[in-house]
């Protein structure tokens, strides 16, 4: 009997222990994000960006990084660390960008990278959501008098290697039974020089990058964009697979910038709105009501910090690609309510 009882006790203890362990580990998975922990411990976000291209990521006259992608890095730093300046930027070439992320050298990759099935399924990466919609665009010299892409039969187009550009051209060739030649360069400097000198008839990249290339030409007005795009190119941030919480933080940081635009909250009026707004949507967004931020493992006012630091998506676009930047119309990157594709997920 006594032996029985002790057996039972052992059994009970084991069960209790297992339940305890399970609940502990369950509780842990809910808040645990190795990347977020590492960022907080380091006191700095390490963000992989482009090595330098107007619009996405470039250094201004004072050497400070600017751009649409840089803004997302800064916004994530503001949301997680409370300070948009606490970012270390790692310039990555298109060849190494994914390896650098896989190896853990960077916490987040925001480098005008296309979201594709192959990358999502075979590289151990998470594709979050597009922060820039574009399509492969070709720019040619005005003097060639070319109006459409299909008129380019026999022409040679310069582009960068390590991308999806040459495949899209190849698909276009097969679909239209024409032959557009390609010339692949490792770095933008030589590719721009080759286009400028006439070695190629045109230059191609995603719409944003071609706008950047045009701004680098000696006489930008000599170049025109052809109206057709050869591909859809949803560009967006990437994280490592297996850290879902971190992926969520990046995703909702982007959505916070969209939601702010939707709600009419800007960098300039965010403090005012926080003080005086009676709109429950705004109050929830800025963390005055509910606990949306806590669910992400962040401070409840993370969205306030993001808008305070970077402004809303529209402001960032205007400063980088829009009227104050490269002069690219907003197009697909407008809010859904204004004819674009930017559609924030529901904020509750």
């Amino acid at each position, binding site marked *: 009997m006594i032996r029985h009882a002790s057996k039972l006790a052992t059994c009970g203890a084991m069960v209790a222990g297992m339940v305890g362990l399970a609940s502990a580990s369950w509780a842990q998975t809910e808040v645990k994000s190795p990347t977020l922990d590492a960022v907080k411990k380091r006191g700095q976000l390490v963000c992989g960006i482009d090595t330098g291209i107007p619009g996405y990521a470039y250094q201004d006259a004072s050497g400070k990084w600017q751009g649409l992608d840089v803004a997302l890095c800064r916004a994530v730093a503001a949301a997680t660390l409370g300070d948009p300046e606490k970012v270390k930027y790692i310039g990555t070439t298109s060849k190494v960008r994914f390896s650098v992320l896989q190896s853990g050298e960077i916490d987040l990759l925001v480098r005008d990278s296309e979201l594709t099935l*192959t990358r999502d399924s075979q590289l151990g990466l998470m594709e979050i959501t597009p922060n820039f919609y574009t399509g492969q665009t070709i720019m040619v010299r005005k003097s060639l008098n070319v109006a459409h892409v299909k008129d380019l039969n026999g022409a040679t187009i310069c582009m960068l290697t*390590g991308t999806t550009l040459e495949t899209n*051209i*190849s698909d276009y*060739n097969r679909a239209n039974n024409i032959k557009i030649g*390609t010339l692949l360069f490792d770095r933008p400097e030589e590719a721009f020089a080759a286009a400028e000198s006439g*070695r190629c008839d045109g230059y191609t990249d995603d719409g944003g990058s071609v706008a950047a290339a045009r701004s680098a030409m000696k006489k930008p007005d000599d170049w025109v964009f052809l109206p057709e795009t050869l591909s859809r190119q949803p560009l967006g941030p990437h994280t490592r697979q297996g850290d879902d919480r971190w992926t969520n933080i990046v995703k909702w940081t982007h959505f916070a910038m969209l939601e702010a635009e939707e709600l009419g909250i800007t960098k300039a009026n965010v403090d005012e709105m926080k003080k005086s707004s009676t709109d429950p949507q705004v109050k929830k967004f800025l963390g005055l009501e509910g606990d949306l931020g806590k669910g992400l493992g962040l401070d409840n006012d993370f969205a306030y910090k993001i808008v305070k630091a970077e402004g809303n998506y529209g402001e960032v676009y205007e400063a980088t690609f829009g009227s104050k930047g490269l002069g690219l119309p907003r197009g697909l990157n407008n809010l859904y309510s204004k004819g674009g594709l930017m559609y924030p997920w529901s904020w509750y």
Partner: protein
Amino acid sequence: MVRRPSSRAYAAQWLLLLAVLAVAWFIVADAADNLGRRNISFGFGFLADRANFDIPFRLVPWIESDTYGRALLVSFLNTLLVSALGIVVATLLGLLVGIMRLSVNWLVRSVALAFIEFVRNTPQLIQIIFWYVAVLQTLPSPRQSIVLPAGLLLNIRGLYIPNAILGAHGALLAWLAVAAVIATPFVWRLDIGGWRIGAKALVLPVLAAILLGAGVDRLEWPVLKGFNIAGGTQVPPELVALWAGLSIYTAAFIAEIVRGSIQAVPKGQGEAAKALGLKSAPRMFLIILPQALRIMVPQLTSQYLNIIKSSTLGAAVAYPEVFQIFAGTVMNQSGREIETIIIVMAIFLAINLLASAFMNWYNQRVALVER
């Protein structure tokens, strides 16, 4: 047994080998483990997948629907082509500058010295980009092509050479012509019962030219059509820039090797040749250079290997060699980073091992046989 130094040495070597293998195994296992944990698959099956991109310059046919494996072959041949061209020109130019460096004429000597010091003290990549951007991109557009003799066209897109379209038996005749040219030096040395053929062997190359001419049906001239020149064979500026960058840079190093090797030949050899009444040219080419060659060969080998490896700089000027096509486009499209890098490394290792094996064989052939 244990005390014998030789068996102890063997034991130490075996232990070292085991340790190296253990470390290698650990690295491979660790990499495989990490790949598995990051949900990355590993394998070479992707070589049979459709490539779907264009390779603008190639020696063998290529269409966009070919496989990655075929892309590897095409880019491999491009690497071999530019390496071979680079080695030939670097050797000839290096020999010339090396001999100039020892000239009794002050101007000739100084020009060679200036060339060497300027070229070998500036980065090779910058030189390649210089040839490409600053020199070749100043050529006129296709519409304003420079017309050269024999129907050649020169413009910013390259040098265009008329194509010979072979007739019905053209291919056979062309192969016969090649065989005739290859046979020439052997026939030259032929000795039939004391009757040496010698210079009469030059009939063969003439015959080859006639055979080639007979095989050609018509010529395809390069002409402007649309945006580009159509017809003819294009020598693209990317190839020329890389070729120039590789051969001129290495020629500077080879020139110094040549100079050093010539100076290492005992002075008495030159003096003896002079005493026999030989003029300066035969003295150099018959007496001194053959002896200097023995000293040169091992050092030349490493320069040749450098040329082959530096051909990867072609990626900067859009020359489609192995590194650009395979470690660039294919790596990006297939996502197979480790596999593509392993393949590219294996290819360069193979080319370089073959090149050094050949040079070692040649070295043994020319080395002084001591009895």
